[in-house]
């Protein structure tokens, strides 16, 4: 057997603590705003009949619910790791994994829905569309968690610092192969799909002839904001994780943007459904898309 010492870069204590605080602050803020999103949806659904038949807000809310529960479990997992027994840790790791996969899946479904609205446009009516979407959004992660659990992959997971001391201990996937396939691989698939759809949508937004002559500059900025809003909805900010090996600044950017996803979703939801009810329906690219979607379903 050959033995050796591996020299690997690690984050120092101060950086780890700073990143931990950013994550906790971001996830906490996200949870509040995601709760607002769900409440807002329920209020709008109560007052406006259209919300009951419209699938787009239902998908946004499903993503919000899964992200809210993911953030909640992150807090539980990080704060109370030491008290959990082996069995409890196994369950906690599985539930945490489940909501992470639900979040990825709903981000992918957001991308698919956007594809139907903006790229495909015609013949987008499917019977029991939201029911099927929900089965996929909540069911596929469950299947993956069951198969990961049957391989006994959940348990205590530790992250160490430069002095080999434990900086973070949580209930998570211990088996590296399972982690790579069901988290990294699955995220990469949904991320690539979302990125392609977002690219096509961005191309449509910026190349379609505008009906608002003389307001090109304003339209351009609206287009940019629309693409940014959609990016957070499709989880593109999470893709910054791929850039984290480039340096500490990308780690900070990734942590900040990904933990604030809930805030961005709330902003998007508010902008999309509040003004679009009052202002002219063609005020933005997505408002147009939303309307066409509603019509196709009607």
């Amino acid at each position, binding site marked *: 057997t*050959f*033995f050796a*010492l591996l*020299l*690997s*870069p*690690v984050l120092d204590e101060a950086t780890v603590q700073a990143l931990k605080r950013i994550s906790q602050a971001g996830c906490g803020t996200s949870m509040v705003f995601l709760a607002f999103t769900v409440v807002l949806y329920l209020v709008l659904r109560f007052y406006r009949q259209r919300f009951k038949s419209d699938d787009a807000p239902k998908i946004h809310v499903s993503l919000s619910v899964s992200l809210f529960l993911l953030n909640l479990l992150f807090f539980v997992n990080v704060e109370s790791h030491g008290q959990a027994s082996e069995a409890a840790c196994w369950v906690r790791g599985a539930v945490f994994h489940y909501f992470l996969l639900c979040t990825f899946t709903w981000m992918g479904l957001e991308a698919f829905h956007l594809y139907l609205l903006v790229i495909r446009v015609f013949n987008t009516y499917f019977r029991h569309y939201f029911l099927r979407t929900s089965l996929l959004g909540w069911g596929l992660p469950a299947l993956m968690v069951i198969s990961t659990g049957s391989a006994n992959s959940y348990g205590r997971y530790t992250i160490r610092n*430069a002095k080999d001391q434990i900086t973070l201990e949580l209930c998570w996937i211990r088996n590296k192969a399972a982690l790579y396939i069901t988290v990294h691989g699955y995220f990469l698939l949904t991320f690539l799909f979302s990125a392609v759809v977002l690219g096509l949508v961005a191309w449509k937004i910026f190349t379609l002839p505008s009906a608002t002559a003389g307001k090109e500059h304003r339209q351009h900025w609206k287009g940019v904001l629309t693409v940014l809003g959609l990016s957070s909805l499709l989880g593109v900010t999470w893709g910054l994780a791929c850039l984290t090996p480039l340096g500490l600044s990308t780690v900070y950017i990734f942590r900040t943007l990904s933990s604030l996803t809930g805030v961005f979703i709330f902003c998007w939801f508010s902008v999309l459904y509040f003004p679009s009810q009052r202002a002219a329906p063609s005020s933005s690219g997505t408002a147009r898309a939303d309307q066409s979607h509603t019509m196709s379903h009607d």
Partner: protein
Amino acid sequence: QEEPRRAPRNVCGGPGVVHDFQKVDLHSAATCFTKCQLGSNACDLEKLHRYWLNYESFLVENSSEKTVNMSFVKTLVQDFSTDISEELHFSLIPDEVPKQIKKEDKPSDRVRLPGSLLKSLRDKGSVDRLAITVLDIGPGNIFKGPQGSLEGGGRVLNNRLVGLSVGRTQITGLSEPLEITFSHRRQPRNMTLHCVFWDVTKGPTGGDWASEGCLTELRGEETVCRCNHL
């Protein structure tokens, strides 16, 4: 009669597996440590990893040499009695062939084999063979793990490997760990060291570094690796 000339072959990437461990063959195989850089020559990493792993087996099974002293590899091959119950200590000083030392001697780089390890071999016979190798793997891709870079952007410290082979049996689940001490410069705060072994069951190119069963004790200018297996 003139010795038939050997056809030149691409040792690093050519077909077939080289299993000759004469000095000239070791030299040829060692040229791949520098030749097999990322994106340069096409090298058959799996074949090259297997070559050096087989070299360890060759040392304990067939080698007639007691020591090998080449610039890139230093080896000690030693028979020992399985009747002894004391632990064995060897020096691993860079640029020197490993040699047995007393317990009290504490060279900067050393290995300690526990008595229980030797005792566990008693059933196989009264005498067994031990090979200790220090290998300089150079700057290339060999023994660097998949994609030429180790998980998390790590690298092998000083490109230095210590090979330990005892007898012909696999040794796992030791109650008392073997101990390898590596000396080195003090590392920057944002870097850490992990004790690892080459696990042939991992990775697409005939192995990858793994740390299962090995504990790392960081001590500033030296690191102690305690592993429960060979």
